[in-house]
């Protein structure tokens, strides 16, 4: 038995084990080393799995050798391995960053708990992505949610408690809806294995309980992915969480929820039920447009940079769901590739803002006046990240936008193509608020005494900024995976 056969299990087990270990050692340094090593191991595992699915293969792993559909199956295909890559990669970059950033945000004696919670959150997100079992999805969803409530509550600002509580209430409603949906599906099919469920749904598809399950799952998951107008929890959570947590959650949590939605729609219910028999594409199209315009417009008027980019996230999630609503290979490719591109871009932005917050003590725009004079690398990185949000050619954001517009034109919908580019102009407006504040104002006397962020914060952030630029010019990994995954989900070219 070679170890390569057990990679799917190791993907989850390694970070899972690192969490109690971090608690047992009780020392910040040791906990940091254990969890960081675990996250890098998880990243390496994800790369290996991604390579293993390169030829369109599906890796199936039976936990405890209990064969599916009775036992829990881990199932890795092109789509899930791509999401695993995003989640573990972001963890591998944010963890080294967090060592420096939490110094100022969290009391030293709680650091080991922070690392333990981070490891659990990572475990949950990876588990949701890799599992092929409906109830297992719910279990991992709860692991990731509960640990992220704790992580958010660790924020220095007392409002972090309120934000965490708000997220807890909304997240629990979402999780409840999801478990009701899964329960109904179990009722109708008698199985929890997703692949098995899909086969059995063919006989009962379109009956009322199945439709109810679809509705519960859609609403529940939409809460978790912050689909407009179910996004209320997101702004506060991102704003008041510790910097490293904002970056990690913004880059991964909503993305994994979108993955779950895609998985249920295409691999369980089937495209024809969701997109042809029900008016779901129309609803999703409208909500996506609302997100793209309303959330961007709200972002323009924010006074806090973290909150501004949080609303921008809601808008960018709108792009992803818009791609889904097209129900075409190009649209789905746009969505999946934007999962990656937006994760990297937003991750970079929140990491950079974290550096500014560490120096300035807050992210309100008035405090950031003249930031470029004092922290040129941080400011310039934020501008580059902003350009990717706008979708300027040469950045990752452009690639997503290209496929979205192409998908709209393929459907013959000119007005949608114009709407997509118009909403990116709103992004120009909110990104340029930062530019004008950072570059055209004089730094305050207090800010003028500060220095550029320490390397421990700058290096991880700039790795992500470079990634954003790299994947704007060379996309064989991102577009290649996304296009393969989209073709596979739609059953084309298999």
């Amino acid at each position, binding site marked *: 038995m070679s170890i390569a056969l057990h990679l799917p299990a190791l993907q989850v087990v390694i970070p899972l084990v690192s969490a109690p270990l971090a608690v047992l050692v009780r020392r910040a340094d040791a906990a940091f080393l254990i969890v960081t090593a675990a996250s890098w191991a998880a990243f390496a595992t994800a790369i290996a799995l991604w390579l293993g699915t390169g030829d369109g293969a599906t890796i199936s792993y039976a936990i405890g050798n209990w064969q599916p559909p009775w036992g829990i199956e881990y199932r890795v295909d092109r789509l899930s391995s791509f999401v695993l890559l995003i989640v573990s990669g972001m963890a591998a970059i944010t963890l080294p960053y967090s060592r420096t950033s939490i110094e100022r945000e969290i009391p030293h004696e709680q650091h080991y708990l922070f690392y333990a919670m981070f490891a659990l959150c990572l475990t949950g997100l990876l588990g949701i992505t890799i599992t092929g079992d409906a109830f297992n999805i719910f279990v991992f969803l709860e692991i990731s949610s509960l640990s992220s409530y704790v992580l958010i509550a660790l924020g220095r600002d007392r409002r972090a408690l309120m934000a965490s509580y708000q997220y807890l209430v909304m997240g629990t409603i979402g999780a409840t809806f999801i478990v009701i949906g899964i329960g109904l599906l179990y009722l109708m099919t008698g199985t929890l294995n997703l692949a098995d469920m899909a086969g059995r749904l063919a006989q009962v598809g379109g009956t009322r309980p199945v439709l109810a399950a679809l509705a519960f799952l859609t609403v529940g998951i939409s809460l978790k992915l912050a689909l407009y107008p179910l996004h209320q929890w997101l702004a506060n959570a991102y704003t008041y969480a510790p910097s490293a947590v904002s970056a990690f959650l913004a880059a991964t949590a909503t993305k994994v929820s979108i993955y779950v939605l895609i998985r249920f729609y295409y691999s369980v219910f089937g495209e024809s039920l969701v997109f042809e028999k029900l008016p779901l594409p129309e609803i999703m199209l409208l909500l996506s447009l609302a997100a793209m315009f309303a959330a961007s417009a709200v972002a323009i008027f924010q006074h806090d940079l973290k909150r501004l980019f949080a609303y921008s996230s809601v808008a960018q999630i709108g792009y992803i769901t818009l791609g889904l609503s097209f129900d075409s290979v190009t649209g789905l490719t746009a969505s999946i590739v934007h999962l990656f591109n937006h994760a990297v871009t937003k991750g970079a932005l929140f990491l950079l803002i974290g550096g500014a917050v560490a120096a300035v003590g807050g992210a309100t725009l008035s405090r950031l006046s003249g930031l470029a004079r004092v922290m040129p690398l941080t400011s310039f990185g934020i501008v580059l990240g902003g350009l990717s949000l706008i979708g*300027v*050619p040469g950045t990752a954001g452009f690639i997503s936008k290209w496929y979205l*517009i192409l998908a709209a*034109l393929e459907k013959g919908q000119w007005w949608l193509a*114009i709407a997509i580019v118009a909403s990116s102009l709103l992004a120009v407006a909110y990104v340029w608020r930062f530019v004008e504040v950072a570059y*055209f104002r004089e730094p305050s006397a207090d800010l003028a005494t500060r220095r550029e962020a320490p390397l421990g914060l700058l290096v991880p952030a700039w790795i992500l900024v470079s990634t954003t630029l790299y994947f704007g010019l060379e996309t064989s990994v991102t577009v290649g995976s996304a296009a393969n995954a989209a073709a596979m989900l739609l059953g084309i070219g298999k």
Partner: protein
Amino acid sequence: MTGYKLILPALAIPLLGSIGIALCNRHANLREAVTLVTSVLLFICVASLLPAVLAGARPQAQLLEPLPGLPIAFEVEPLGMLFALVASGLWIVNSIYSIGYMRGNKEAHQTRFYVCFALALASVIGIAFAANLITLFLFYEALTLVTYPLVTHHGTAEAKRGGRVYLALLLGTSMLFLLPAIVFTWHVAGTTDFRPGGILPAQLAPATLAVLLALFMFGIGKAALMPFHRWLPAAMVAPTPVSALLHAVAVVKAGVFSAVKIVVYVFGLDQLAGSTDWLIGISGFTIIAASIVALNADNLKRRLAYSTVSQLSYVIMATALLTPLSVMGAAIHLAVHAFGKITLFFAAGAIYTVAHKTEVSQLNGIGRRMPWTMSAFALGALSLIGIPPAAGFLSKWIALSSAMEGVQVFVLAVLIVSTLLNAAYFLPIVHAAFFREPDDANDAHCHGEAPWSMVLALVLTGGMTIALFFFSDSLLQLVKQLVAAS
């Protein structure tokens, strides 16, 4: 192989130059030396592509492939060759001028200024040599972004306002219209390569074709077609060398260059036949309307800016006539306007530097104190009006004859009226400078010519407007290849 040996260096030289400039931040003399060396190297590199292109070769190079089937690729064809030559050649002169101007006016952030300039030139080379729409778009947007710090150089509230208009109009038009047009072209043609004769499938409905042309023409905001011209006067808040090289030559020419290139190589002259009447109308309107605004502008730079808006539409109108002769005229005008207009801006900057005068009404008798400057100004003005022996006559002559050829009464009328308007807003300045008494003869603020580097630069460009008239052979040869190919 010549492609890789010369095209990629042409892109790399200004990029490396910008790094060199940034490294010499604290040593002003060294920094300016790096700028000059970079600009000379770039010109040599671009010029050594010329023999091959004249011989009919099309050097190519390819970098990356961001999207499947859509590589970042370069191909040097006659029009791009011409544009790159003009821009890189004038960068040398402009660098000489900038040194005098920036030091004379004790401008701040000079390193940032030279770095952005080098980056802007790299973007211009990318636009000029782009082999497909996606490469063109990449460098087109890059040019907007790297010139933004130049427009807002002074960092004042006015500069910030100007910068907002600049970005809103240039990014706005390119994203709202140009990008969808490019994606649509890819969708229907399966390629975005520039090919002689066009790439669009023949069965495209005339209405679709017209919409696509409109998206492209208005999408290229840098061509300053009304009503998207406001960014150009707004950009005048920048230091004068920026207005001179970028907003009289590089950026605006990148606009009309892209427009000509798209008409010739994406649509093809034959396919567009009959669907450009509206474009002739709009560009004609822009020519006349902008000239009238220029006539009433007292601020010298504003007058020059509106004159540019009007002159750019000459290129668009000539292209829209769709005959080989008119396209030739468009290409020649792209070059000759550059030399004339940069001279005028150089003169305006020289006047501002020594006399601190910005309004036309303040220029009485200034020609006696600044004879070289105002003589060069007069040459530039003659060229723009189109009077021989200045080079502007060439393009005007060709445009007129192609209008006569097709009996285009509207075009003919626009050309004649606008020539009169050009004369009406330029000649009074020359007249006042030389033949009016200074308003206050015993001006305490006594001044002579501008610093020598500025005078040298403007005399050079002024002289070139005449030289181009007498030595127009290779220019004509180059543009003949452009229309022969299509």
